[in-house]
């Protein structure tokens, strides 16, 4: 427990406990205005609460939106139409997936066209081999990937992450927007690649060793 006292208690502003709904409602109010995932630390700083306290509240809200309430286990079991998710390192409110068809009628923007097979394969190689050069991706896919890489960059799914110190080639990595779109916290949460390479543990290294 790092129960750090807020370092600026004097600039605290209103006493959260005195407000209707208390800290829990204050946190909800802030969640209503963010337009990208916010970390527990950012939320704690804004609310003048400890990170631990905010994390507890976030967990509580998440469970509550999903239909479990500690206080009234029977009264309120229906889930809400939205959910609180911890994605790409931050918290954010989403409409529940079950209502996608209905919500989609109201929200036209933001839903981008599906990626082609070529784009998905390229994205997969970059996600698992990042940071990686285009030449390397093209060697794995067996085709030139320049235009696909351009499209993925425009879509904000991958980005330039500097140059390879040896070859000078631009290296690419996935973005936090990619994590958001995948609904995961980090690339470590991607499905394991090895089960798809049966009995070939050694070969990947052998193969990689001789390449660029």
């Amino acid at each position: 427990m790092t129960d750090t006292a807020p370092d600026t208690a004097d600039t605290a502003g209103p006493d959260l406990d005195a407000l209707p709904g208390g800290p829990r409602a204050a946190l909800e109010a802030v969640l209503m205005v963010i337009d990208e995932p916010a970390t527990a630390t950012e939320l704690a700083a804004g609310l003048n609460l400890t990170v631990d306290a905010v994390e507890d509240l976030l967990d509580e809200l998440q469970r509550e939106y999903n239909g479990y309430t500690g206080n009234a286990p029977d009264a309120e079991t229906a889930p809400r139409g939205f959910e609180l998710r911890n994605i790409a390192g931050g918290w954010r409110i989403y409409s529940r997936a079950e209502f996608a068809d209905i919500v989609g009628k109201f929200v036209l923007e933001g839903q981008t066209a599906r990626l082609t097979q070529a784009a998905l394969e390229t994205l997969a190689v970059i996600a698992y081999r990042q940071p990686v050069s285009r030449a390397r991706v093209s060697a794995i896919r067996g085709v030139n990937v320049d235009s696909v890489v351009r499209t993925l960059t425009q879509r904000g799914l991958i980005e330039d992450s500097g140059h390879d110190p040896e070859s000078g080639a631009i290296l690419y990595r996935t973005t936090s927007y990619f994590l958001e779109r995948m609904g995961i916290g980090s690339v470590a949460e991607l499905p394991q690649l090895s089960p798809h390479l049966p009995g070939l543990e050694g070969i990947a290294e052998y193969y990689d060793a001789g390449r660029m």
Partner: protein
Amino acid sequence: MAATLTPAAELSPAGKKPGFEVRLANFTGPFDLLLGLISKHQLDITEVALATVTDEFIKYIKGLQQLGEDWALDEASEFLVIAATLLDLKAARLLPAGEVEDDEDIALLEARDLLFARLLQYKAFKQVAGLLGSTLELEARRYPRQVALEEHFAALLPELVWKHTPEQFAALAETALKPREAAPAEVGLAHLHGSPVSVKEQAEIIGLRLRLGKALTFRALIADAESTLVVVARFLALLEMYRDKAVGFDQLQPLGELSVHWTADSADWTTANLSEEYEEQP
């Protein structure tokens, strides 16, 4: 060896791009095509019945070639490398089964292992790409709350510091609108193995032999070539030298023996005349 020469020679003359258009046909690359053929015949990747698959692979490439679209050298060469490897392997299978005897056999086995390894690696990424695709689709069903800031909050934002004159702003627009230099297309050389062979060096060797005065056949000129790459380099060197009118060709009938002779008026020709594209060595 003869089998590998065919595709290599198709690729090399004058560096012309072969006309392939592969994306037309739902395959995103040579591995995709190969996997497709293997699964069509319900074969285990590691025990590919090469004869069937190779024939189809080559047929497919020929079909694409006839469509005549320009296609990136990089992509075409990948297809050719795989076609060549398949052909090699097929040729090896046609020989009586026996022990691994010489370096060539070992090289063939290595080529096969490398091809299988690359094919399996591609297959793994293809499967994972499918998973990414379905996850992205599933996740797209959740819409994030992403609403405009309520007006009374927007009003709290600090007044914007704005120092740009219209001219400075226009300069900014010029930069932003200028078509970006496309990042240089990278031609993958990763599939090329073996030590680099210099066209210039090979031209030097050919020059020394022909200057002696006697016409030599192409067969004789490549008799001592230790690898296909050297053969290709000497072939390219001859084309260059022919362009410079340093050598002449004689061929009595189609597919007949090609004879090469030094031309009289080229006493002062040196390899320095070679075009620059061969000078950069990786």
